[in-house]
């Protein structure tokens, strides 16, 4: 009976401040929107090279040169996520003057020109070179395009070397004339096709630190945890205010047990977090179409576990804080730090290694990963791992809090006696 009274009182206190209530329920979705707009490029950001364009100029304009141009274009035709802010490397077919303008304006990183008579020159072994023009102020792209085009030239060279070997040996075995009469056409086709058949060399595999989710799902999961943590600060405030007004001391001589007080606070924080959870999930589902078709059981387990760990952490902060102001400060700054280190503000992929290692100590790292797995619709073993770690963290916080509470209680009684 004592527990529901404490919960009722805490909730009454919370809802008495209407401005705080509006902020409490309105902020989450507003923040998710801001984060998506401002930080989603970090999810797709490439640390080594930005997307760039290459202009293609076909001055030869033969069937073969057009095939070559199409091959360049199709080599980068991989499909990309429609939500992605990233653009792949693109080839733009244009004329020489426009291509040079584009290069001058920085619209393309390089220009590839197939010279007039290119195909004919190859057929007679003259090999007119492909013209490659890059921007020296973009050295990385310049080198990259140079390497890429050299690899194309090498493919043609390889095919021609193969044809040359065939000719030399056929000439040794029979005669060069017979080679041209009987073999040449077949040899050119088969060696050229063989040299170009490099695409099947690779089997592709994609790996990612982050489960396969959209930017909306990512930031909803990331901020969901942050707001559950801010709900935990409510718990801190209740406990800290009780300390300030001497309620804690008075409670210490009442029949109310420590465990009952902790349980009541946990339930209060749980109710507030649940309300905030719905205040974020429902509009996010409607506006951002986040994936909510996973079993609600997974969602419930993850949510309860996160709230448990956050509440335990909040109780710990409240216990160690000497004043409500210190508790507020520790709660706010602690939440901010945990959010930054644990991947709730910036994706873990964009953080330095040292911070990634530190992230293992934060609630956010495990909780965000758990929610992301739910939103991705692919629950793996790491989901249960996340739950286990969160439970362990919560248990440690509670254990330490109870010990500290007992010590503080002992001190109070000693002072009174």
């Amino acid at each position, binding site marked *: 009976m004592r527990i529901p009274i404490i919960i009722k009182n805490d909730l009454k206190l919370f809802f008495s401040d209407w401005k705080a209530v509006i902020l409490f329920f309105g902020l989450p979705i507003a923040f998710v929107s801001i984060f998506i707009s*401002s930080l989603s490029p970090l999810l797709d950001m490439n640390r080594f090279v930005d997307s760039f364009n290459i202009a293609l100029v076909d001055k030869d304009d033969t069937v073969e040169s057009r095939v070559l141009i199409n091959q360049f274009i199709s080599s980068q035709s991989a499909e990309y996520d429609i939500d992605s802010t990233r653009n792949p490397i693109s080839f733009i077919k244009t004329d020489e003057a426009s291509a040079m303008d584009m290069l001058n304006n920085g619209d393309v990183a390089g220009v590839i020109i197939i010279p007039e008579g290119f195909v004919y020159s190859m057929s007679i072994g003259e090999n007119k070179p492909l013209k490659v023009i890059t921007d020296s102020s973009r050295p990385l792209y310049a080198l990259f395009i140079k390497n890429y085009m050299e690899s*194309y030239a090498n493919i043609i060279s390889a095919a021609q070397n*193969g044809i040359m070997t065939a000719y030399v040996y056929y000439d040794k075995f029979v005669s060069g004339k017979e080679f041209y009469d009987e073999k040449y056409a077949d040899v050119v086709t088969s060696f050229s096709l063989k040299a170009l058949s490099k695409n099947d060399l690779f089997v592709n595999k994609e790996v990612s630190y982050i489960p396969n989710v959209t930017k909306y799902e990512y930031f909803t999961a990331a901020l969901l945890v942050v707001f559950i943590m801010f709900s935990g600060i409510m718990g801190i405030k209740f406990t800290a205010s009780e300390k300030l007004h001497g309620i804690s001391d008075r409670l210490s001589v009442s029949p109310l047990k420590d465990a009952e007080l902790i349980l009541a606070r946990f339930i209060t924080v749980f109710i507030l977090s649940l309300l905030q959870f719905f205040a974020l999930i429902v509009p996010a589902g409607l506006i951002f179409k986040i994936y909510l078709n996973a079993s609600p059981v997974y969602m419930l387990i993850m949510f309860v576990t996160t709230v448990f760990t956050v509440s335990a952490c909040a109780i710990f902060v409240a216990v160690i804080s000497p004043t409500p102001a210190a508790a507020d400060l520790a709660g706010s700054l602690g939440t901010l730090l945990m959010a*930054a280190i644990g991947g709730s503000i910036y994706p873990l992929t964009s953080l330095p290694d040292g911070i990634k290692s530190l992230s293992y100590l934060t609630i956010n790292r495990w909780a965000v990963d758990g929610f992301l797995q739910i939103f991705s619709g692919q629950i793996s073993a790491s989901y249960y791992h996340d739950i286990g770690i969160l439970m362990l963290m919560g248990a440690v916080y509670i254990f330490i809090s109870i010990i500290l509470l007992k010590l503080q209680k002992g001190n109070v009684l000693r002072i009174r006696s």
Partner: protein
Amino acid sequence: MHKILTVLKYKLKILLSDKSFMLAMTVIPLILTIITGYALKFEKENKIPLAVCDLDKTDYSKTVIDLISKKDGLEIIITDEETAVEMVRDYKVEAAYIIKEGFKENLIKGNTNGIIEQVSSPSSIASNMIGEIIGGEISRIIINITAADWVVSEYNSLKADNRLKSAYSEKDVDVLWQEAWDYTDSLWASGPAMTIDYIEIESSNVTENPDNINVESSMNKPVPGSSMNKSAFGTDSISSAAFGMLTAFIMFMLMFNSSWLVEEKENGTLKRIISGPGAISALFIGNILSLIFIGLIQIVLFSFICTIVFKVNLFAYVSNICIIIIYLFSVISLSLFISSFLKTRIQLQAGAPLFSIITGFIGGCFWNIPQAGGFVKTISLFTPQGLALDLFNIFSAGANLSLVNLLTSWQAVVLILSSILLTVLSYVRIKNLRY
């Protein structure tokens, strides 16, 4: 004047007594600067790192690795399979290439399907093109084999038809195969048959700032005596992040420390003080000066540590000093104004951190990206942090900008006017308390 100094001395004694708070206000933004600076680091390396794992360990696989290692602009990291995949997952390499066991054997058999595993992340941009580059090198080996196979095949066929010249009638096919292979490969010795006509030109677009090239402002003069200039920063993301964090935590600290007004209102001190002639003005000015003083301490301390830790001198430019001072006044006036409305100290101490964090996020302190635009950027300009950061970004990148430009910019005018207005309003509200 004496009254003001007395108030200032007293307030500073109180404010500076909480050393752990001052320390937290310096250390936490530094930690966040590291995180933000790294996260928002958009500069690129001058090489694209690739992890390569050779499970085949044959002369063929080694030849491929040797050939791609010679490519400029690519940094090849030879490692084991697990590490290679981990490096891709941790975004340490653009992609990983695992040369599978049986690579040579499969090439000789003509079975080229999936002999290399390309591991990339969803954000990989260049992996397809790098695959083409590696494929180009492997083509050389494939054609050597194809040519050798063709020669042996033709040899056998011609031998069966009795068309071979007598000098070649009794040739060992294995020797012949190797001869043909070596001959094809030897043709590379004089260079590739097909070359490219490679030209580098310098584009006229100098403002694009590609490939980690810092743009130097011509008119934005460094503070005399400062050895640093904008190029020397070399870490623009760090300076942007540091300035963002500094603005966020100035707000945090000053909001938290402006509780004097609420506190003295709450315990009746204010009513007693204002009955004395000129006391209210002395109290008001003294407290503002104390906030300016601790704000400056925070700025100096933070920038000093930034210079040591990150080699980034935030205030190497006069413009940045002006921006932070204008911002400081604006935050002080805002904190006074908010405090003049609050009834209890608990209200302020509960609201201050939340207010600072919320406005910090909205203002862009945690995503101070100069290139940011759109709706979020517009929203950010409704906060003092957003205005200060906008000025910082403009004056960090812009050429031909002077102090007059800064002081007459609309962002600075808004900050200065709002500071004056809010300070006056706060003063009037306090004065009205006597009635």
